């Protein structure tokens, strides 16, 4: 059992969740209620990580973060170590491939709030912040929690993108999914089996919780 890898995976998943929470709330809410030209293109772009092979996404991220790219050079000049094959690089990749998992459930949750209920909140003279905290968030929370759980579980399990962008540096980029692969390659089936079982349990728990929560959201109009 590679505890360091499990810890790193948890750290990556938690940070991804934390950063995507405000982004997801903002984007989910905007996509649920605003109308603008090319909305479907934005939605399609955000859903892209669902269908794109992880190696393709990883390849582009690697190119974007590499020493030859402006982003990579800028990062190197700022922190004097490369972005690719670092934990920070891994976090950025994780944020991007988790976008659909964070945004879509939140968008569904905000879409389920009846427009009149939001209008009623305005008619009650509530400030925007109070509308958000007292009405919108309490009504959308199952979707929000579901999004976070899915993001967490998905980060733990991501393999392809991590391998492309992070490699397998112990304590820096070797996540549990990578570690399982390494152990299997080394014919250490006991360790690989144990870690697989842990991931299976976490994934099963989180996906069940997510499904249970999403049942609370009745689509509008009901």
């Amino acid at each position, binding site marked *: 059992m590679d505890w360091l890898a499990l810890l790193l995976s948890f750290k990556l998943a938690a940070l991804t969740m934390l950063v995507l929470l405000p982004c997801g709330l903002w984007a989910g809410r905007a996509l649920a209620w605003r109308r603008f030209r090319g909305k479907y293109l934005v939605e399609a772009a955000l859903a892209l990580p669902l269908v794109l092979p992880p190696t393709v996404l990883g390849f582009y991220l690697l190119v974007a973060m590499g020493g030859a790219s402006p982003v990579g050079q800028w990062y190197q000049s700022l922190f004097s170590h490369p972005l690719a094959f670092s934990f920070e690089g891994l976090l950025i990749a994780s944020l991007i491939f988790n976008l659909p998992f964070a945004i879509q459930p939140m968008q569904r949750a905000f879409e389920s709030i*009846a427009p009149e*209920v939001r*209008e*009623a909140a305005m*008619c*009650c003279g*509530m400030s*925007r912040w109070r509308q958000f905290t007292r*009405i919108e968030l*309490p009504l959308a929370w199952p979707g929000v929690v579901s999004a976070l759980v899915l993001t967490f579980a998905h980060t733990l399990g991501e393999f392809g993108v991590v391998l492309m962008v992070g490699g397998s540096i112990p304590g820096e980029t070797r996540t549990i999914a990578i570690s399982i692969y390494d152990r299997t390659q080394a014919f250490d089936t006991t360790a690989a089996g144990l870690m697989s079982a842990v991931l299976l349990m976490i994934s099963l728990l989180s996906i069940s919780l997510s499904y249970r929560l999403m049942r609370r959201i009745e689509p509008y109009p009901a």
Partner: protein
Amino acid sequence: MNKPPSTSSAMLHATLQQTGPIPLAAEIACRQGELLALVGPSGSGKSTVLRSIAGLYAPQHGRIVCNGETWLDTAAGLQLSTARRRIGMVFQNYALFPHLGALENILEGMDDPTTPDARKRAQALLRKVHLDGLAARRPAQLSGGQQQRVAVARALARDPHVLLLDEPFSAVDRATREKLYVELAELRRDLKMPVILVTHDLDEAAMLADRMTILSRGRTLQTGSPLVVRRRPVSAEVARLIGLKNLFTGEVIAHQASSGHTLIGWHGQRLKVRLQPDFTPGTGINWTLPAADVLLMPLDHDSRDPLDNPLSGRIVKIVALGETVHIQVQANATGDARLSLNVSHHIARRYALAEGQQLTLRLRGEHIHLMPADDNPRKVTVRAR
């Protein structure tokens, strides 16, 4: 008493114009403590007018002033957000906050819901709408009528400067509705602000409103007390909208000021009607007569009014609807024109009324109302300001 309020004394005054997507040419005014009903068929723009007042809809051009405060003035580029307009709104489906109890719903309508004073006021409001004891119930655990009461209490919670009611009775059954009518009428005695009620139900408007404004295709056509609008619609269009059956065309023959009547021609018949000297003799007109003022001749034959017009015809249709019998009579000399009248079942039986039967009617000229002919409508102007 039913004179329209002048712009300056009106507590709420709104003029709205736009060409599309929903055309608007509306002007409404409502005084303190007055209930103004906006009446029109679906798609007439009445809800849009209400939503514009609430700031939930932004018309192309308009000006809305409430309690001396300008909420909208497109000419000056001024538009207050909904939250900054002191309104109380009751939505058609009440739009209660589904995750909060009745009391909490009312509290959310207040400016500072966390104070103990707010809680006390919310409880008082709950009592006022007869819901004490149901404070913790969520909307889903309340009946339609109870939900409406919570919605009304929530709308009143912030002491609004105008109370806006958007079809508040359409989502409940008839028995509940009748109860809620009475409650609103009682509640109104304590309300100091203007109240605007949107409804498609003319009877509801007539029952509850001090004045009503008739809308069609975004235009306000006529404002007046329910009685005046029903008796004296300004145009054939209004007459049709409020469902007047006896609407005919004719022409003015002469005014006889000395005997207090105007003489009109109708398919060669001459009818004596209440003196209405605004119409030049020789011009075409529309005229209307309430079904209640078309009488069966034999009744109190002796007490004939000098303005009664006898007319013979043939019954072409008899339909019993509830407690009344609706009768259509085709007058002998007037082509296809059919007069409608309503009688009670026992009258219909006593005179053995039947289809095909000849009879003489009496049209009460006192209540015959003249309107400009359709092709020459008197301009209903809505001034842009």
